[in-house]
């Protein structure tokens, strides 16, 4: 299958190569020149993507530990069975699902609302667009650290703001230390940081809708509400779905923000799958086991993304 694909690519590259190029390089056929151009990329892909993937799959069937000198033993599907039957893993998957679903819902709703507002041309909208985009330009390490300070119960600004509006004493609740609040604390930070990204994609969608469609709707005396449901939302939907896909994949792999804010705690409340994976791979050094876990996560994301892309294509074709 891959041979057919690469041959096709080579042929296309040949067609795209101007005839003068072939004449300049003596002794090489057009096909050889095409391969010459493609080869570095193919080698790079093989070295940094395909080879590690195959290696990881192979390791996932062994009890290999990278910190031991003992030979790795083939254990069949034992690692996969152990992972899929372990309650801690399912708890981590639940924490991941909770995080992914809520961040996507909030970021999509707020992101689209912001894009809709920004799309109305008003005075200073360029300035406000830039201001809104600032969070996504910051490094996750910086964001994680300063939100940790904001959530500090004794000196944190966040607690004081909540206290100002609700009258609850600021030191009486702990955003990062409470089992019920910690997952939401992370969702808030991720939403704050990545909503602008969703907004940007949605804005591109809104700007791509031709103005004459609205003009025609107005001639037909369609209300703004009707225009929104019949024109704006359906035409921006592929873009919204694309933003959801990007954020979904990204948040399924979320590691840095959670690690910085809670480290998976309190207890294991915010221990998302990637934190569990890191602990197994680089703290406990169960390389074979963690390879199997990585493959399970990869297949899950890949499978879900594929189903989603098919749905996206169907929406685009409508």
């Amino acid at each position: 299958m891959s041979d057919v694909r690469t041959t096709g690519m080579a042929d296309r590259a040949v067609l795209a190569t101007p005839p003068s190029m072939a004449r300049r390089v003596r002794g090489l056929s057009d096909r050889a020149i095409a391969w010459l151009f493609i080869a570095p990329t193919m080698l790079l892909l093989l070295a940094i993507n395909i080879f590690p993937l195959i290696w990881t799959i192979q390791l996932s069937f062994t009890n290999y530990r990278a910190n031991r000198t003992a030979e790795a033993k083939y254990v069949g599907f034992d690692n996969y069975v152990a992972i899929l039957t372990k309650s801690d893993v399912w708890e981590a998957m639940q924490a991941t699902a909770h995080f992914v679903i809520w961040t996507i819902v909030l970021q999509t709703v707020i992101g689209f609302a912001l894009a809709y507002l920004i799309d109305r041309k008003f005075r200073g909208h360029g300035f406000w667009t830039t201001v809104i985009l600032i969070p996504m330009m910051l490094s996750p390490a910086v964001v994680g650290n300063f939100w940790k300070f904001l959530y500090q119960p004794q000196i944190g600004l966040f607690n004081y703001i909540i206290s100002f509006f609700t009258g609850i004493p600021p030191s009486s609740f702990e955003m990062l230390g409470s089992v019920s609040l910690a997952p939401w604390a992370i969702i808030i930070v991720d939403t704050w940081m990545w909503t602008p990204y969703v907004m940007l994609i949605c804005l591109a969608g809104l700007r791509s809708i031709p103005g004459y469609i609205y003009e025609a709707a107005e001639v037909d005396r369609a209300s703004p509400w009707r225009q929104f449901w019949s024109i704006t939302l359906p035409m921006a939907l592929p873009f919204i779905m694309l933003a959801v896909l990007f954020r979904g994949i990204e948040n399924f792999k979320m590691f840095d923000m959670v690690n910085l804010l809670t480290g998976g705690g309190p207890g294991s409340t915010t221990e998302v799958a990637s934190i569990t994976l890191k602990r197994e791979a680089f703290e406990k050094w169960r390389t074979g086991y963690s390879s199997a876990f990585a493959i399970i996560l990869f297949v899950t994301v890949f499978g879900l993304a594929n189903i989603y892309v098919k749905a996206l294509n169907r929406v685009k074709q409508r």
Partner: protein
Amino acid sequence: MMRLKKSAMALGLAGLVSAAASTSASAAGELTLCWAAWDPANALVELSKDFEKASGTTMKFEFVPWPNFADRMLNELNSGGKLCDLLIGDSQWIGGSAEGGKYVKLNDFFDKEGIKMEDFAPATVYAYSTWPKGTPNYWALPAMGDANGWFYRKDWFEKPEIQAEFKAKFNRDLAPPKTWTELKDIAGFFQGREVDGQKVYGAAIFTERASEGITMGATSALYSFGFNYENTSGKYDMEGAVNSADAVKGLEFYKELYKCCTPPGYTDSYMGEGLDAFKSGQVAMMMNWFAFMPGMAKDEKVGKVTGFFVNPGEKVAASTLGGQGISVVANTDNMEGALAYIKWFAQPDVQKKWWSLGGYACHNTVLNDPAFKDSQPFAGQFLEAMGGVKDFWQEPAYASLLQAMQKRLHDYVVADKGTAKEALDALIVDWTEVFKEEGKL
């Protein structure tokens, strides 16, 4: 094409020159010592200047902050990196590093150079040097003795009005506690109190989740309440030891102390957070390693008003072991230089200076000196603590064992999940699984 050839030649030449430069630096005697970034590391830099003068070796240091120390250094060892020639690694790493061939076995070298392990405190040799435990197979020289101890605000304890109120409430003088029950009384007494116009809290204890914090903190209580890892040493028979009635009581007590008497937001705190809380005058008492006591005693703001006490007993007197031995990394390019450093460091005079600079020497010449107890305000407590230290598993699979305990303890103490008995029962299941994988059960 000619231009390309010239560029390639220039690059090749540059590569050769830089390789030659690095080889000559190594040949001239350059050693890199890796350790955690903390107060004693600064003292070691100062001490090592004498070695540089005596040997002509250039010393380089790689100090990593504690929360990342294990990750960074174990990755370095496991990947066969060449960053460190010498490593002052945690006591729990010794099993894995010895069995994995990461450390050099030092027996022959000690014999050749006349370095005797009997010259060092037995508890430190056992914990920092030997693998298998207690056998005369040495993988490190005891470098830095340490245990978990306590710091307290002497000035607050001495205030007449506070003393009077405490006595009226508890019918005893306010003094450094001898038991965990007394410690909790004192912590509760200070919790939320106003001292010098500021609201203060009882105690800063370890609750950190990611690395080793809550395990090191909770075991300080557990050991004192009678917790053991095994019923019979070396048999891995944990049922009835790990989850004994005493162990359950100890864990429940640690949770009560966390709930009643720590500052708000103290859910993920270790050494650094404790030091911040104590130095900023937030807490009356702080659990932390003896290693920080020399620095605290010299602190401009709170040094003079800080007192120290050994980890309280309850059923038995016990302290959680800290500290490290210094090992030679097996794939060093400068084996000779690394061994020369160990030989130099083992000298009694160097050990004396090490203590005077703020390092906790383990050499008997230092510890048995009659003047030692009075040499520092915490020296006597250090000796007392080292007489009753207990350490975590030092097995090659220690990281898996530690992570399991971190999870179970944090789930119970901070996240209110289940009971103490359930947490310890679950810990036995986790540990049994690890030992089965290791082929020890």
